[in-house]
């Protein structure tokens, strides 16, 4: 399949390892990533707070770029997915649409509403399908217990995201099982990572992150995995702060979703930029039993 690749800001900057792993997975599965150097940031939920219509217009421009090329969009961030999709929903309001159109039309940009925005998780579980993913697994992650952490904007608001059940999703766990890992069930998997107030009230953000990590740990997780680089920032880059807030040793490796899949496809830690994580991932990888031994 061929799809417009919307990497989002972080995967091009501080979460480059997410981009590396995405390319690995897509190459293996024959997903052709078409790149558009004119995509802008999605606003990350913050521009939405400051100016809703501006945020919709920025994303209508992004949507129109893919639409014009006749391609659907691939996101690798729960927040990008949420913002692009929310723009699709809110632009249906005639007042909003006329304001956005008035800003875009003079630029020769037209958003028709035909483009679909899909997160990599959806592409892997629905478009490619789990049997095809399974067929590419060279090193099943047997023995590794992984707590999926979905990220709010991939799931909610469910009616606007057209997501699977917002409170009891299972696609991520299905994917983890398909690559041989053991998914861990815990309440925190659908909770918030705290990122939106990481700057505003770090103590709150870090406590929230710490509690979700503790929850995953209490349910036996060797690692967590997330489809959102903002969650990754909260859970990995600020895990030291989270540990301090919940007063516990956490030492929880946190993978980006495509890193887990690529590991099972045979990629090396170097190819996936695992050394860029703040929390070392080797202990989790060491849990993987060699094929045939389990």
């Amino acid at each position, binding site marked *: 399949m061929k799809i417009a690749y919307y990497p989002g800001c972080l995967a091009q900057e501080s979460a480059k390892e997410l981009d590396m792993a995405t390319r690995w997975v897509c190459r293996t599965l024959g997903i052709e990533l078409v790149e558009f150097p004119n995509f*802008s940031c999605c606003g990350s939920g913050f521009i939405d*707070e400051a100016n*809703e219509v501006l945020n919709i217009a920025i994303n209508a421009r992004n949507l129109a770029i893919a639409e014009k090329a006749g391609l659907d969009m691939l996101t690798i961030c729960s927040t990008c997915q949420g913002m692009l999709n929310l723009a699709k929903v809110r632009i249906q309001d005639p007042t909003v649409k006329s304001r956005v159109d008035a800003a875009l039309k003079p630029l020769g940009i037209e958003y028709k509403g035909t483009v679909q925005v899909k997160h990599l998780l959806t592409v892997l579980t629905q478009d490619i399908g789990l049997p095809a993913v399974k067929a590419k697994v060279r090193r099943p992650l047997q023995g590794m217990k992984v707590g999926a952490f979905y990220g709010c904007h991939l799931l909610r608001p469910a009616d606007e995201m057209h997501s699977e059940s917002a409170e009891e999703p299972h696609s991520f766990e299905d994917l983890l099982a398909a690559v041989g890992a053991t998914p861990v069930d815990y309440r925190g998997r659908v909770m918030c990572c705290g990122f*939106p107030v990481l700057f505003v009230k770090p103590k709150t953000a870090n406590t*929230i992150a710490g509690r979700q990590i503790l929850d995953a740990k209490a349910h036996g997780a060797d690692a967590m995995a997330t489809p959102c680089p903002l969650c990754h920032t909260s859970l990995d880059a600020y895990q030291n*702060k989270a540990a301090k807030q919940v007063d516990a040793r956490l030492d929880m490796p946190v993978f980006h979703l495509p890193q887990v899949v690529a590991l099972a496809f045979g990629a090396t830690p170097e190819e996936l930029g695992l050394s860029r994580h703040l929390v070392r991932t080797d202990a989790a990888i060491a849990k993987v039993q060699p094929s045939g031994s389990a």
Partner: protein
Amino acid sequence: MAADTVSVPFDVYRFQPGKDARPRYQRYTLDLAPHTPILTGLLQIRDEIDPTLGLRYSCRSAICGSCAMQINSKSRLACETQVGPELERHGRIVVEPMRNQPVLRDLVVDQSPFWREYNKIEPHLKLDPRRPMPAGQPTAMTPAQVERFKETPRCIACAACYSACPAAEVDPEFPGPMALAKLYRFVVDPRDTAHQERLVRIQPNGLWLCLRCHLCTEACPKDVRPSERIRDLKEMAIAVQGATELGSRHAVGFKENLKGAGQINEMKLVRATFGLTGMVGQIGQGIRVWRKKPEIMKKPRKIEGMDELDKIYAALDPPAKEEP
């Protein structure tokens, strides 16, 4: 077992503070039709098996909002949640009291934190004494004004949103989704004369602590959509007061940030939010992250078609006029 019934295991949270050392879960198994409301099951337990089970309920029709509780970790009204789907997904029904409010006994919580926050927003119309409402006559509103109320009056104050809110869980200062949705209702009421004052007052330790995780919107049995109304309040608060709080500075700073390259400049954003002096406190963690991810210091690539983005900003986000 009667025809068309299934065996339903309930694991019910039991706790009497002051008497029990710690909470425990008690298993009760009932034969119920799959469409039976969980509240009906709990009342059957209380009436037929264990009269000591404490729970709160009244109308049984999802109107009074008394029977909100945690059902398999979700904030729900027990009267409108059926056993069948829960059993199918979880194999059992775990019933716990609402979160973020102290337990009084079993499934009954002390709702004072919830009501305290509600009262704090002054949930009543503040009219202009110089322009009293005409006695005995309706005050007309335009359809557009009424449209803004379409969701918030549906609230039944069940506190399911408060129970689901991670900000309320960690931050006792956070007003919670219901109080903020209620505040919105008064802020957009054309009869209320305290819009500005309300929007200014709610900002420190209030509005900007919302995580926009939408867990409240998901939990709400009446589709009040608190998280979306909180978003509206944030935009209105910036319009009234400008970017004066850390939260509003971050939101406005983010908006301004894209103007350079169309992609986020992480360093510039930190500076916009904290100011140069405030950045000092961020240095330690910044260096820690930078050693693994040096890109946080780099300027982002400028997108192609930046002129388009500039024009969108010019059309939809014109610079604010200076205060006279």
